[in-house]
């Protein structure tokens, strides 16, 4: 008998004695609904409170101007239409190895208004390291990618990827941070110290 069989047998024997099931909760929610008209304002508020920097662009031309303004040093570019449209024709110092980059530029799968989060995957984020190894991360997103809650973002991921899920999906809520020393907030613990978002209408 393998350890797997032994453990599963022990579990089966254990749960054969049921424990009293807790009453299912009445219909409810953890977060209050956010009206469609407040989505953007809520996201802006949450993202700023997390110390993210948001720029809004009326179109791709303005987005390119904003990228040119925000870009510094060597840049690693992720895949996707948004990144391509926002960097086309710009003279960026692009590097092949993410480890050499001062800035990573990626798209994303969704933005979450309630928590100011950016949801990306190994596909929209250009792999696993590009959005976390460089000291700064710039995200290009379209206004339609904004959803109210985390649950809605999971629905977007499901619609886009299931059942061929990417091997990395991550919900990014503000720049990298720690408070392990006396509960003092410090940004840029291991991931990016700066998080920029260009939101294209």
């Amino acid at each position, binding site marked *: 008998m393998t350890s797997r069989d032994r453990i599963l047998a022990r579990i089966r024997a254990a749960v054969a004695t049921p424990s009293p099931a807790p009453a299912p909760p009445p219909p409810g929610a953890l977060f209050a609904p956010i009206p469609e008209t407040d989505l953007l304002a809520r996201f802006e508020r949450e993202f700023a409170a997390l110390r993210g920097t948001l720029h809004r662009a009326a179109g791709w031309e303005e987005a390119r101007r904003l990228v040119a303004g925000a870009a510094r040093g060597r840049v690693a570019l992720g895949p996707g239409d948004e990144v391509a449209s926002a960097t086309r024709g710009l003279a960026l110092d692009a590097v092949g190895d993410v*480890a050499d980059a001062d800035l990573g530029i990626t798209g994303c799968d969704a933005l979450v208004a309630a928590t100011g989060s950016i949801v990306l995957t190994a596909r929209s984020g250009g792999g696993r390291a590009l959005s976390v190894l460089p000291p700064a991360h710039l995200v290009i997103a379209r206004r339609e990618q904004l959803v109210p809650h985390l649950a809605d973002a999971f629905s977007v991921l499901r619609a886009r990827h299931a059942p061929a899920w990417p091997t990395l999906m991550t919900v990014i809520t503000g720049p990298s941070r720690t408070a392990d020393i006396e509960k003092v907030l410090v940004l840029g613990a*291991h991931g990016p110290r700066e998080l920029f978002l260009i939101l294209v209408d």
Partner: protein
Amino acid sequence: MKAADPRLRRVIGKAVASWGEQTARTRARFLDFAWGRAALRARKADALARLPGLLEEFERQAAARGTRVHWAQDAAEARAIVLEVARRSGARTAVKSKSMVTEEIGLNAFLEEHGIRPVETDLGEFIVQLRGEPPSHIVTPAMHLTREDIGRTFHERLGVPEGGSPEELTAAARAALRTGFRASDLGITGANFLVAETGMIAITENEGNARLVTALPRVHVALAGIEKVIATLDELALFLPMLAVSGTGQQLTAYNTLIGGPRAADEADGPEECHVVLLDNGRTRLLADADARETLHCIRCGACLNACPVFRAVGGHAYGTTYQGPIGSVITPHLRASEGFGHLPSASTLCGACNEVCPVGIDLQRQLLRGRRSRARAGGLERLLLRLWAFAAGSERRWRAALALARWLPLRPRASRRDLPQVAPESFRTWWRKRERP
């Protein structure tokens, strides 16, 4: 272990006060925390009732995506699995993100004995590893230390100037660890959740070190208790904010990452191999006790530690366990049944503060009482002494005789964890009688 230290008490007091403020502020922004708690309690109970099926589903889905799933009955088996993976990877060092299960099984010391250097990359874990200490808190491992303590450690071990601010100390740790992520062939993580539906592991963190540990090394091995499995991806939309608000007072931590196997053919990077070790190590004992089963709902947020007046007074090290505070006191006697941690449920005031903050609705107060009861049933010296006390206190004559006797007895037990107060040389009544007669 020193349990009464005024300086420690101040350091912990400050940290838990800050946690309390942030948690209260964020909880107030949630529509209904109590609803969230009831919902999570129902989901965890359901997941445990269906545990065999969910674990098999997790294994099937993970394997379909190229993850190798291992099962470990105890700590020794889990350590051996990780060592085997490490040896085959050829790794000399392993970068680790925070994992209480690896603490539980003593993985670091074991890897070192076998010539593989484990490097903790979570800032708090990195600090306590440099000091050769165990974590004092399951979420905030260096909670017992001041910036001065950490500055001295970094000065001695990393050669940075003493007196650094938290920003400077964090930057020093970042710089010291940066190259390790790429230089290591092995990344070791825990898992906050196992998603049965998709065969993915979920990792909650703030620093980004877990993302680097799962991105850069060639091999990734994750360790998780069998109770971590949940049914569907969508449930995370509830679990993640409830974990974040309870653990650190955030709505969501900076990174909540789902890892579903090694790098896929169309992906830019990621490990070539991905392993998940599912650990029993006493958990099926808790599961078999239908009354104690709810303690497996725990998502290791650490809120009950912060809320506990006993934890606040003595700190995490005084428990001598991997899991401290109320949850540690109820699960450790089961997880380490042969090692005699049965006294831990007594380290509680039964004030109920832990119940109030638990995001998954574990009735910790009741579990602590159950722990005490089972210890009392087991008998022993405590029971004999309480019987004697009850007999003596049963009549005034016997009580006075007992006190008179106590004045003559050397009531200073050897190796006691605390001082027993001396019986006064004369009783209050005697003193009062003398005082009344001039």
